[in-house]
């Protein structure tokens, strides 16, 4: 990791088993990871945990990753978001680009690719803050 302090991440993913495995992997690599399995939980936790980056699944039981992104932007949370989805359709990628996601990863994501993107995301945030 590039930043000195521990970076806080928010994972929004409805598949609990995937959430747990991803959280464990990222915690082992020095991140503080919060998890939300619904859109409602994700939006509620934003103001509580103040993540430096988010990993958001497109498919959520009570909404969608795109909507989470829109609300985040509306509420002024301008953090880098890595969108993660099994639906890698052309339309989904176009929409993600319009919403300015930091990275678009197709599931099953390569763990070290996610890690690389997260490091870049956190670094970009640190640079912007400076």
């Amino acid at each position, binding site marked *: 990791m590039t930043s000195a302090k521990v970076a806080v991440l928010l994972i929004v993913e409805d598949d609990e*088993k995937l959430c747990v*495995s991803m959280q464990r992997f990222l915690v082992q690599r020095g991140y503080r990871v919060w998890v939300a399995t619904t859109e409602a939980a994700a939006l509620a936790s934003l103001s509580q945990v103040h993540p430096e980056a988010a990993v958001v699944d497109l498919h959520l039981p009570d909404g969608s990753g795109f909507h989470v992104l829109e609300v985040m932007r509306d509420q002024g949370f301008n953090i880098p978001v890595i969108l993660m989805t099994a639906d890698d359709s052309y339309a989904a990628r176009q929409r993600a680009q319009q919403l300015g996601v930091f990275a678009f990863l*197709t599931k*099953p994501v390569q*763990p070290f690719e996610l890690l690389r993107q997260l490091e870049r995301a956190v670094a970009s945030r640190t640079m912007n803050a400076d």
Partner: protein
Amino acid sequence: MSAEEVVRHTDVTPPTPERSEVVFRALVDAAPCLMIITRLDYTILYFNRFAERVTGYTAAEVLGKNALALLRPHLPEEPLGEELTTEFEVPIRAKNGSERWLLCNTERLPSFNGEPALVIVGLDRTELKEVQRRAWQAEQLAELGILASGLAHEIRNPLNSIRFNLLNVQDLVVPAAPLASSPLPSGESGRNEEAAGEVGAILRDIAAEVDRLEGIVRDFLRLARPEPSQIERIDPGELLESVVRLVEGPCRSQNIELGWEHAAPAVVVAADGKQLKQVLLNLILNAQQAMPEGGRLTLRSYIRDDQFLIEVTDTGAGIPPEIRPKIFQPFFSTKKEGTGLGLNICRRLIEQMGGAIDFESEVGRGTTFRITLPVVPQTEGR
């Protein structure tokens, strides 16, 4: 024109046998349908011009031969001529090995050259059949698309969880690389390291299998839900060069001599560069797999009739005639681990770009796949 006039204008001279023969031949040869007269045992007695055109055989080649044995080898014995006068659709095998579909009618002739005979009249329905096949396939694919999206979601999440957990297990079991100064493994710790190494190898195997499953899902989605082509003006020379650079190494290691001839230096084609590259790499991979003992792989590109052509030629085993009609069908594969989607995707991508893909193959000598793409006229520039 009144009925009376029609009668007046009609030639009512009684026909002579010679004249009947001439008229018969002219009519039969001019007819845009296949006409074959056979004995009752299907021995061919007459073969009209259209029959020659559809089957690729000349009348001289087929007279006296059995129509079923000639036109329907490898095909099940369907009742050709059993249900006389009933319309039926039947596939035949042309001389060049291709399959043609005929809509046939048969009729008994009381006498042809003095013996009872059978007349077979057939319309060539091959093109219509192809259109129907594609329409059917499109329908199937639309349904498959919905199914595939759902399936992809259901499969990709657990696959992802497996991927992360493999690394989580590795974190627990496989220790970090020992320091250079640490003593050589011995006793208990040596065995532990050995076991850890084995676990690491097993985890890598599982990861490779996850990659394989993901590859199947990805291919399945590409087929079921193809992406639109982003047609641009591209320099095919540049693209081919990048493809050659990518495959040089693997070819060398597989004892395959790679040749490249680009005989269209200043051409600009309308295509989706990314998809064209994907197609070429797929064809090259197939060619490499057709030559497990090594051989020669040639990429040729040239202009013909205002079209840009790219050929991928291998010196492998060739494609047996009986499977040639099937190689572009989805899920048809001769490879143990193939999904049977590669060539189908290739054809769809090339057709999306307004091009075409075909092949020639000779058993024991090799196969050439040929991509044809539209050339952008020079005046339009880049």
